[in-house]
């Protein structure tokens, strides 16, 4: 790779970071708006999460007595993982500045690193709810991990590589692969994982006020001001990242395979359209859902694991 190409790829990565991080609050706003309209309400508007964020940045930050540096570092670590993911995952273009960061296993591990930072912060507050949220989050994480890795495995078989860029390019080259049973099964498994990892219904309710039913929210009960802003922005971005990853793995059209400005612009447009459609669909689906009992969640995840395992074996026997 020549120096010029590296610069181009770095620019493309920065574009991705900006699109994801700036777009994430509006995606969440869109999803809330879809929900509000389906409930017969008027809704706060697509820009409401962005307004919330701006307000949070100007508010006082608090640390609970007895919390250590871990509590203060966790939002930063979480936000950093989000930025790294937004730069490395092929959202807009499959060309990345450095090979070796866009490997799917690495991407999943970085995603987990962010979750772990937040769970440690939840424990660090020394409150009952912080520990409860951390414990539940970690349980779901541990059980979702095999599904996500096996789904990746199923997708990587057809291209012989677990690099995200390779997988997306492979699907663009032979779109018929996307309709193989392996891909469809993997898509189902992946969808369940996205719902679990981002704390959406039916696994977790993002707008709950009852501490006893919380998972993600219970961990962040102690954050306020800019810390809370970072945590909120990070969790919105993680939703955008996982949705973007999902659509690009299973509906890859529009992703740029070069660094030409026109292709990048088309890539950004395609990404925004696809993610918005998927997000709206997810929000509409949630309206019909009730939250599962906490101890029914493992059954859901075990079911998705079965799908992922079937996907892998299907990729071998039905290829």
């Amino acid at each position, binding site marked *: 790779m020549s120096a010029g190409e590296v610069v181009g790829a770095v620019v493309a990565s920065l574009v991705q970071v900006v699109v994801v991080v700036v777009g994430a609050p509006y995606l969440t706003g869109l999803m809330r708006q879809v929900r*509000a*309209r*389906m*409930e*017969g*309400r*008027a*809704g*706060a*508007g697509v820009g*409401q999460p962005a*307004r*919330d964020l*701006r*307000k949070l940045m*100007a*508010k*006082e*930050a*608090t640390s609970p007595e007895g919390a250590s540096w871990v509590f203060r570092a966790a939002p930063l670590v979480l936000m950093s993982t989000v930025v790294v993911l937004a730069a490395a995952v092929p959202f807009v273009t499959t060309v990345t500045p450095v090979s070796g960061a866009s490997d799917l296993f690495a991407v999943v591990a970085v995603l987990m690193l962010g979750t772990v930072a937040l769970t440690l912060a939840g424990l660090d507050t020394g409150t009952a709810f912080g520990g409860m949220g951390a414990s539940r989050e970690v349980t779901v994480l541990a059980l979702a991990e095999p599904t996500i890795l096996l789904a990746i495995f199923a997708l990587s078989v057809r291209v012989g590589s677990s690099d995200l860029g390779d997988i997306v390019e492979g699907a663009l080259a032979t779109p018929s692969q996307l309709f193989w049973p392996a891909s469809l099964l993997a898509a189902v498994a992946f969808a369940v994982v996205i719902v679990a990892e981002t704390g959406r219904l039916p696994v977790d309710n993002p707008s*709950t*006020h*009852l*501490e006893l039913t*919380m998972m993600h*929210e219970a961990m962040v*009960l*102690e*954050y*306020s*001001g800019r810390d*809370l802003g970072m945590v909120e922005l990070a969790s919105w971005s993680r939703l955008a990242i996982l949705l973007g990853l999902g659509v690009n793995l299973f509906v890859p059209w529009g992703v740029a395979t070069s660094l030409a400005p026109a292709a990048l612009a088309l890539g950004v447009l395609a990404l925004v359209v696809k993610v918005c459609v998927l997000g709206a669909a997810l929000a509409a689906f949630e*309206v*019909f859902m009730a939250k599962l009992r906490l101890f029914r969640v493992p059954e859901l995840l075990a079911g998705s694991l079965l799908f992922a395992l079937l996907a892998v074996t299907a990729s071998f026997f039905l290829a």
Partner: protein
Amino acid sequence: MHKLLRTMLRVGRIAEPAGTAPAPSEAALAPTGSVQVRHVDAGSCNGCEIEIGAAFGPVYDAERYGARIVASPRHADALLVTGPVTRNLAEPLQNTYEAMPAPRRVVAIGDCARGCGAFAGAYGVVGAVGDVVPVDLEVPGCPPRPEDVVAALRELTGR
């Protein structure tokens, strides 16, 4: 699911039309169009709670003005207090107020919260909300109408 979908299509949007935005007020936070609310029941008969619930329901839809109920005072900008403050809730109410990050506002909802209402002088009551934490806005009524609750929230959000 099919039935629910049909109901949705039949009912459509039932939120009442929004009135004009409120005039800028002293109680308003910086005009950000966003207010997170933590609600504390300091000893209410639950009449006010029902009206607050209605204010956040589909018809009055307080969320469209940027107000949202949150679980933790750390996330909140405004404290909605209902009822006369009973002895057992006085300290928790103060703790809740202390836990909120600045800038913060307190809204006393209902006649009990404003001046103990029917419970004035009762043995278990410490006093009105204003006797325990500084109050910025008051909503009269026993119970107050949802429109009044919404109006108070709109004053805070400035939308």
